[in-house]
């Protein structure tokens, strides 16, 4: 079983790295978080922007959590990883090679979780570089120690977990465009709305976005969980999506 899954993980990596999708997503994630890092550094301490000043601990936490903006790219990476099999109908040869479909989905989850680690490290490195270099040019750089380092690590972890959530979501929805649109609408419309409406903001802390915010706890947020609770909840979402996706993929007919 273990060697079979290891083989399937390698097959998934071959699939991922023999098209150019991964380059686009990686560049997109780096540019996105790098640009946010530059903006936040540029306007730190600016009265109108409301951002904390460069030398404040709030700014440091904020700057090192910027990589979480790339979670949207993580979700898309995971979604594409599984829905391309249905979109290009390669689910047929894939499940012919491995009729135990559960193994295929487990291999995908593992393959994408593992790929997400260097991806998260790179995105975090780009963010930190921009913050340090640009901050230095503006006269102050936050220290990469203690609590700041923790925030950075959790931002990286979030990138990995969101990739796993993406794989699970893709397995659930099967339709590539539909799944990506659903993810974007949820992340950029539904969650911000729930967060800002007083009646629903209490529930927000239980959502993936709320859990993510709790792990990297920036500033002026609504009621959130403790950091460790946020981490567990986020992992829980990843596992639930993975489990549901696996069950569905195993049961559905491939026509």
């Amino acid at each position, binding site marked *: 079983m273990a*060697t*079979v899954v290891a*083989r*399937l993980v*390698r*097959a998934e990596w*071959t*699939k991922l790295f*023999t*098209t*150019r*999708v991964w380059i686009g997503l990686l560049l997109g994630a780096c540019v996105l978080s790098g640009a946010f890092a530059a903006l936040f550094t540029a306007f730190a301490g600016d009265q109108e922007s409301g951002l904390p000043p460069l030398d404040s601990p709030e700014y440091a936490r904020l700057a090192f959590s910027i990589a979480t903006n790339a979670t949207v790219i993580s979700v898309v990476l995971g979604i594409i990883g599984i829905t*391309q099999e249905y979109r*290009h*109908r*390669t*689910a*047929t*040869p*894939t*499940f*012919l*090679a*491995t*009729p*135990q479909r559960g193994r295929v989905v487990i291999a995908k989850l593992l393959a994408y979780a593992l790929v997400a680690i260097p991806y998260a490290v790179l995105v975090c490195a780009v963010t930190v570089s921009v913050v340090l270099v640009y901050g230095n040019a503006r006269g102050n750089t936050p220290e990469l120690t203690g609590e700041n380092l923790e925030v950075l690590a959790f931002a990286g972890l979030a990138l990995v977990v969101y990739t796993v959530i993406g794989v699970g979501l893709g397995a659930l929805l099967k339709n590539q465009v539909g799944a990506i649109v659903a993810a974007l609408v949820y992340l950029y419309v539904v969650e911000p709305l729930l967060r800002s409406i007083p009646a629903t903001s209490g529930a927000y802390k239980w959502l993936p976005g709320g859990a993510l915010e709790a792990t990297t706890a920036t500033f002026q947020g609504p009621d959130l969980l403790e950091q460790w609770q946020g981490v567990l909840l986020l992992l829980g979402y990843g596992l639930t999506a993975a489990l549901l996706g696996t069950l569905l993929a195993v049961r559905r*007919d*491939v*026509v």
Partner: protein
Amino acid sequence: MNGLTKTFGKVRAVDDLSFTVEPGQVTGFLGPNGAGKTTTLRMALGLITPDTGTTTFNGVRYAGLPEPMRQVGAVLETAFHPARSGRDHLRVYCRATGLPVRRADEVLEQVGLGTAGGRRAGGYSLGMRQRLGLATALLGDPAVLVLDEPANGLDPEGIQWLRGFLRHLAHAQGRTVLVSSHLLAEVEQTADRVVIVGAGKLVREGTLAELRSGNAGSVLVRSPQSTALADLLRSTGTTVAPTDTIPDGLTVTGLSTDEIGRRAFAGGIELHELRSHTSGLEEIYFQLTAGQEQYAAAHAEQGAA
């Protein structure tokens, strides 16, 4: 395959279908579009769960086979990522089944795609896509091959190549080959045995010779003395009718070309043309499939009645 049944909504796509495929032969799986061929093959390979029935390969269900790609090779559709090269596509499945990646190059050579392996599969012609599908099936050097409409989209040269290739795999290498088609001519050229399905049910099964016997087909004969010839040929078990489009032509069923020629020669009648019009199998197939070209599957209620 034993008692396979599958209902989609109200349509009974496959209805209690059972048949056996033997090694060392090419078995044609023949039926009009919508007869349930693809559904049957997908059920056999564990991609669709049948309502009832099982399919086994040497006594084992597909999902129960250790290393299924090394025992059964299947081409169900030309499925690949358009941006991935043919060689990389094959390497994916080498990795997934634990085969050495050089198998990818070997099967590319085998199907005549050696030089195109590095190109993006999205740019392949229909015929090249069929060859890539065949290459995927051959990766594990399987003893059993299951091919769904592999001749679709092939040019005449490609079809010629495919026929020879399938016969070579079965006769020279002793593999079991099951190939589906909605075209009788295709099956007649390739297969040793035929399984004919219509509306999800088994219609006929047997060797080509068995199916041909008992129905000689129709013969077209042309003669300036067509009236005299018609009288000469009429006997029990034969029909003779003037051919609509040819003024001095007769369409004869129930007699072979040999027999007609012999009788005409004995009767001193001059012949201008004598040829087989339709083979016996063609007649059978037309009768079986008349009026059910498309949407051939019966409704489930009717099927159950």
